[in-house]
């Protein structure tokens, strides 16, 4: 069982219940694939560093889940099909879930993280 951390960017036009539907859909996909979701964080709409699919903004969703390695390919295939997801990235977390990763915009909470999260490319 490996721990993966996934970030996906939802199209900015998807708001309110459409946005919730997309997030819920992918939670369902994960559960259906047998993954256990350890943590889900939504950073809301943020400004993108560069235009993605002609959009300057996007809503970020961070999901940390645990599961068999095989499910990531399927999970990513589903995300590619879905148009409302404009970008995603899945990363293997070497040593499981460390201290809760602070959202990029939230102030850094000063927990004592023992050692850095060693993450190698998926």
């Amino acid at each position, binding site marked *: 069982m490996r721990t993966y951390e996934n970030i996906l960017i939802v199209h900015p036009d998807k708001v309110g219940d459409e946005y919730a539907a997309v997030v819920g859909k992918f939670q369902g996909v994960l559960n259906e694939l047998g993954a256990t979701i350890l943590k889900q964080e939504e950073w809301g709409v943020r400004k993108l560093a560069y235009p993605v699919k002609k959009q300057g903004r996007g809503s970020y969703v961070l999901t940390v889940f645990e599961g068999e390695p095989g499910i990531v390919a399927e999970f990513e295939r589903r995300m590619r099909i879905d148009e409302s997801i404009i970008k995603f990235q899945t990363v293997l977390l070497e040593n499981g879930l460390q201290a809760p990763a602070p959202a990029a915009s939230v102030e850094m909470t000063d927990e004592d*993280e023992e050692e*850095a999260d060693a993450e190698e490319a998926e």
Partner: protein
Amino acid sequence: MAEDRKPSGAAGRTPFKRRFTRRKGCRFCADKALTIDYKEVRTLRYFVTERGKIVPRRISGNCADHQRKVREAIKRARNIALMPFTAGHYLD
């Protein structure tokens, strides 16, 4: 006068892009609370020039291990548009 250590191999004069003063030790070895994570853009921003390029190790003063982690984190942050590839992105 900041101690003017001659960068090895470079011609006599200091490299022209000397905007950054030479940091002594590696930031991550010294201060343990600092984690390298592709989501924490604020810490990564120290290692990127205004044009969005990664600062070389001889200027950022990182040790090899941490510099590789920083580079990997920056590339991941760029991949999900948390950090720009180049500063010149026109934003509509």
